[in-house]
């Protein structure tokens, strides 16, 4: 049996899904969080049912790629669980009535039941159930209330007896709403007022600048704090002595020693430069990158769950149109600062192929993921703010110019923004921590094996002398155009596996500040890491992917070359 979770965007389908199946999926307070479908299993009395989390839709006519996925999916379901937002039943029932016409067994979940009370909304659930002729269950997915009723009443799901004339749909919805809902007069709350003030230009733009600056400062504060207070002491005081013991046992040198521990500097371990599997291979992902991943996703999750991102989208819409995008593209851009993979996936909320291409190209070329940023910050931060500033300024300028050029090159009208703006909500602590934990787990699972693989491959290539060979081959480009030593080629090769390791590999090269800036910029731009590359291929198809890849190589050489001349 296949059960589909269907409903308007942002009504809590993904939270319900996680509750039913135990499978973790991301839930955030903006429409378009889910862009593909995830399946999970729900244990019933005798059998397992397949439950599918579907992207949200407003009607059966798809406007974006994510909605297309959803509408196609509908055909395959045996039972539909229609999740609706109890604080907005009028809009939600409009879809419910369309679903009724599909003639499939249905259940209606009145989610956000917790919010009806303080908003003065009273809904006669029994009456609604009679009218629609399908079970209607109240729930608060974030706390789990009502979820057990969904399971126990699943067997009661039936084809709705509600008949109406399609032309009269809105009229019918209106009738249902007025007969089951009773609204108390409701005062404008502080949240409502803030919700409005932060999309109005004169208050909203200063607020947005403030939020962005604060985001930056807090990410850096928490990230650095964790590194200097927790992770560095852990590695220096506890891990280093253990590794030194092992080093002694292995005889301080030799092939195995060098692969595991790497080269000792002055008889000790330099976690950044040793390049052994259990030294640099662990230190980079755990002590240098993880703290920033943690602080970034903490802040991102708060912004997501509050409901700020769609407001930001409205405020930056004008700017984004100059790049052939519209405001909503800020959401994938933002996500890609964490990792390009979810960023690329999230471009599915954009309507046109042109937008998706531009958005993906810009983020692959100009947005360093947090793993890479953390390393750049650690590497360049030592030289003061100017080097760091130069890197990020360059990326920003290229982002703008490239977007501007791509917009002119690709002939296609960019549609206007069209997005529902959710009300502000205080993040639910449990949900927030769960999401953060999910993202951390994902990072650890993805990053550590690849970092270790990267370090391993580097050692092998180095030992076999392949590096020298490729280095000499690429010398004209790397030294001639970019002004980097030929060993930097190595870092670019490894960058295909993991960008953080690649940046780390610059450390022993003893580069000047200028070279560090160029290398950081080029490493961001020249090519995506393998994980992003795979998703890029899946999302864009072969032809567009090749175009994007050529664009990356060309842009990185061009920009790197210019930096080499002007710095």
């Amino acid at each position: 049996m296949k059960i589909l979770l269907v409903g308007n965007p942002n009504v809590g389908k993904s939270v319900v899904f996680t509750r039913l199946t135990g499978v973790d999926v991301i839930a955030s307070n903006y429409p378009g969080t889910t862009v593909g479908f995830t399946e999970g299993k729900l244990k019933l009395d005798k059998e397992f049912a397949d439950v599918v989390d579907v992207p949200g839709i407003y009607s059966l006519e798809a406007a974006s790629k994510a909605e297309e996925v959803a509408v196609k999916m509908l055909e395959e379901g045996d039972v539909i669980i229609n999740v609706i937002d109890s604080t907005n039943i009028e809009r939600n029932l409009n879809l419910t009535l369309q679903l009724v016409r599909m003639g499939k067994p249905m259940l209606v979940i009145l989610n956000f039941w917790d919010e009806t009370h303080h908003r003065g909304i009273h809904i006669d659930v029994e009456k609604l159930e009679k009218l629609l002729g399908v079970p209607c269950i109240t729930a608060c997915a974030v706390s789990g209330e009502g979820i057990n009723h969904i399971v126990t009443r699943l067997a009661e799901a039936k084809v709705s007896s509600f008949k109406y004339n399609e032309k009269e749909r809105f009229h019918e919805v209106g009738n249902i709403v007025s007969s089951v809902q009773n609204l108390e007069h409701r005062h404008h709350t502080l949240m409502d007022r803030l919700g409005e003030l932060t999309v109005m230009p004169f208050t909203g733009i200063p607020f947005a600048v403030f939020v962005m600056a604060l985001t930056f400062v807090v990410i850096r504060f928490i990230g650095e704090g964790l590194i200097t207070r927790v992770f560095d002491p852990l590695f220096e005081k506890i891990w280093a002595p253990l590794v030194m013991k092992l080093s002694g046992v292995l005889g301080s040198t030799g092939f195995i020693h060098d692969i595991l521990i790497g080269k000792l500097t002055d008889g000790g371990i330099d976690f950044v430069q040793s390049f052994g599997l259990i030294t640099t291979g662990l230190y980079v992902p755990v002590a240098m990158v993880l703290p920033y991943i943690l602080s970034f996703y903490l802040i991102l999750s708060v912004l997501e769950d509050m409901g700020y991102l769609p407001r930001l989208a409205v405020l930056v819409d004008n700017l984004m149109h100059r790049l052939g995008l519209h405001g909503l593209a800020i959401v994938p851009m933002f996500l890609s600062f964490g990792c390009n993979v979810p960023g690329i996936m999230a471009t599915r909320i954009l309507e046109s192929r042109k937008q998706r291409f531009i958005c993906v190209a810009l983020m692959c070329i100009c947005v360093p993921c947090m793993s890479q940023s953390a390393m750049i910050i650690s590497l360049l931060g030592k030289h003061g703010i100017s080097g760091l500033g130069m890197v990020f300024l360059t990326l920003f300028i290229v982002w703008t110019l490239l977007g501007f050029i791509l917009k002119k090159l690709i002939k296609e009208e960019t549609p206007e923004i069209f997005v529902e703006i959710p009300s502000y909500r205080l993040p639910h602590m449990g949900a927030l921590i769960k999401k953060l934990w999910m993202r951390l787990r994902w990072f650890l699972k993805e990053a550590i094996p690849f970092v270790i693989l990267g370090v391993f491959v580097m050692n092998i290539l180095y030992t076999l002398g392949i590096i020298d060979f490729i280095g000499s081959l690429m010398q004209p480009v790397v030294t001639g155009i970019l002004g980097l030593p030929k060993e930097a080629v190595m870092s670019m090769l490894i960058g295909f596996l993991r960008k953080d390791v690649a940046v780390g590999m610059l450390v022993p090269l003893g580069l000047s500040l200028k070279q560090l800036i160029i290398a950081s910029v080029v490493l961001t731009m020249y090519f995506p890491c393998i994980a992003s590359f795979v998703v890029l291929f899946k999302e864009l198809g072969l032809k567009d992917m090749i175009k994007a890849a050529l664009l990356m190589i060309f842009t990185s050489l061009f920009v790197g070359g210019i930096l080499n001349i002007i710095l």
Partner: protein
Amino acid sequence: MKSNEVITLAKMKQGETGTIVEIAGGHGLTNRLEPMGIREGGKVKKVSGQLMRGPITLMVGSTHTAIGYGMAQKILVEVDGK
């Protein structure tokens, strides 16, 4: 009752309310707007407009939606009197 001024949503001032009298767009547009409650006869409040023909946000019932300036120009609203 004296009838009020009819202007496009784009021209309304921030905070003004009114009733939608016409949506002068094709099927594609009305189909997209309808689910958000934006349809003829509905009450709207313009929440915000951006500089340089940026997007407009409007509130219908408890649904707050952002739409492009071009779309807002196609929505005709009879503005409530003061």
